[in-house]
């Protein structure tokens, strides 16, 4: 049973870290309807920045901040490419991710091990296994509450309008371009923070670690939407659920070449269960009226 607890801890920790990417993907894809392919680049950039700074002995919390700033910059660049150069959504993201690969290589090389440098998790080495989930949960909750608060303000409202009804913005005299850039800024900052946390969590930076992060973000978001379509800490749960599915796949220990198919099937089962329960709900309400 202790084993299950450890596995659960791993799932929750990973789920929280990637849940931040899910939040960023939500703001970009769902709110401003901009499928942000720069997420992968920003994730890696955040990781590279934090790896470099930590290797220099900089305070790990400051390195997180630096990673977020780097992510914000990449978000602004993506936004500018789209708004000022009229580049297609997807292309802006692709261009940024491609360019960032070289920048990441220059910053941290293809691989950088943190060895025993201090991260936000190991300030008391013996407590690491307890402090990690606690710090992660607090960090994620704070971040999500902050973004939630932002979304409920005027800026957030206008952000949602950019995706649904751009005309409204021009009607009230606001520049929708700025809000697109702002949305991408939030999205990439989240991705960069997630990347930085991942590097501090696993203890090393790898240039290839950001491959596939967009899929993790999108899957987490869609799985959350099985439960609710509003923004909130629920997105963290979606991410945790996705990690649980992947972990379950590995627990089956079947021929490892089938693993990806098993993951796909588990997700299909999950989503069809929701569709079935929705249909049943509709039928029930139909009967009672």
């Amino acid at each position, binding site marked *: 049973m202790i084993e299950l607890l450890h596995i659960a801890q791993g799932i929750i920790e990973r789920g929280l870290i990637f849940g931040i990417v899910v939040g960023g993907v939500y703001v970009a894809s769902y709110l401003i309807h901009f499928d942000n392919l720069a997420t992968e680049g920003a994730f890696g950039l955040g990781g590279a920045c934090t790896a470099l700074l930590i290797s220099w002995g900089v305070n790990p919390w400051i390195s997180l901040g630096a990673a977020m700033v780097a992510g914000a910059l990449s978000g602004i660049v993506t936004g500018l490419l789209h708004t000022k150069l009229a580049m297609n959504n997807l292309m802006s993201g692709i261009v940024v991710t491609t360019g960032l690969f070289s920048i990441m290589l220059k910053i941290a090389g293809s691989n950088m091990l943190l060895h025993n440098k201090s991260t936000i998790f190991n300030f008391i080495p013996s407590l690491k296994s307890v402090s990690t989930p606690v710090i992660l949960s607090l960090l994620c909750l704070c971040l999500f509450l902050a973004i939630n608060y932002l979304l409920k303000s005027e800026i957030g409202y206008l952000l949602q309008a950019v995706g649904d009804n751009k005309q409204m913005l021009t009607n009230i005299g606001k520049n929708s371009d700025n809000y697109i850039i702002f949305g991408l800024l939030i999205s990439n900052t989240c991705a960069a923070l997630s990347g930085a946390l991942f590097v501090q969590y696993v203890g090393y930076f790898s*240039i290839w670690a950001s491959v596939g992060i967009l899929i993790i973000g999108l899957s987490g978001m869609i799985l959350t939407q099985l439960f609710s379509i509003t923004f909130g800490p629920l997105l963290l749960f979606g991410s945790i659920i996705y990690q649980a599915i992947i972990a*379950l796949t590995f627990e089956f220990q079947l021929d*490892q070449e089938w693993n990806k198919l098993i993951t796909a099937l588990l997700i299909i089962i999950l989503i069809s269960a929701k569709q079935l329960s929705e249909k049943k709900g509709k039928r029930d309400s139909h009967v009672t009226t």
Partner: protein
Amino acid sequence: MNPGLFRGFLLPKINNIKKEKEIIMKKLIIFFVAVILAFILVKQLKKNRSTTKYTIGILQTASHPALDAARSGFTDALKETFGDTIHCIIQNAQGSIITAHTIAQQFHTNPQIDCFFTIATPAAIALSTVEKKRPIVIAAVTDPQALGLIHPTTNVCGVRDMINVKAEINMLAQLVPQAKTIGILYTSGETNSLTMVQEMHKELEKHNLISLDFTVLNETEIPTAVGLACRKTDALLAPTDNTVAATISLISTITHEHKKPLFVSDNMLVKFGALAARGIDYKESGKQAAAMVQKILIGHKKPAELSIENGHTEKIIINSKIARDLHIIIPEKLKGDLLYVNPE
């Protein structure tokens, strides 16, 4: 305005939000219970399998010929030594660092595993940062020193796949003496390739050969890079690089078209169309690793004692058809170490 009317308007809305939250909570709880039950079920099913004495956890970085060969060499040699008393749990990260870390963590939480075997650098890093106690045997890692895995209290030992670059370049100079410029093909961002490439630059300089680097990011860039290399250089050379291994048939087709010799560092790739290699046989690396596992589990040796062995790199593998097509003359002094292969 009658306040009662207003309240009557607001109340159903508040109730709806409350009900929505309740439904979400219920769904979440049902879901989590289902997942926990699923895990418990799977764990129980797997528990009944402990009829074997030893369990090995194998973490392979990606699916491609060299790494697959290392794994099969390992499992075959284990079967010979241990027979039925050993059970291998094989997992593959399919090239994803995140998956490698996930698998490493789950291996770490599995108390039944006695020893680990990792294939290629990402797997080695992932598992060694998570698992500090149980022995880890690594293979297909070019520079374990740079990864900080070698120190007196380490739990890591294994087989390095660094080739004897000096000997390889010697072979190259002898097989194609008329070549002046050599193009080196590798993936930018692959640490093991970079280490080898730096050595290659040094050795090529010693032979007064000019070296040009041709780097790719992934498999889609290979045709362009190889085409360019064929036009600008007299021969191509590739270190042990994952992208090169995965696209070897494509690369050899292009080099054959341009009639340029292709040298590789992975012996298995020669039969796919390279001219020659004096490099690593990954299947042998797997066998060496299995021998280490035997010393650890049965001989009760510590990984720190076994440390890192070099792979065997004495053989030269030559593709007979390519050698004929390119009119290569094999000098007498190489003939002793040679092994001819026929193309696939």
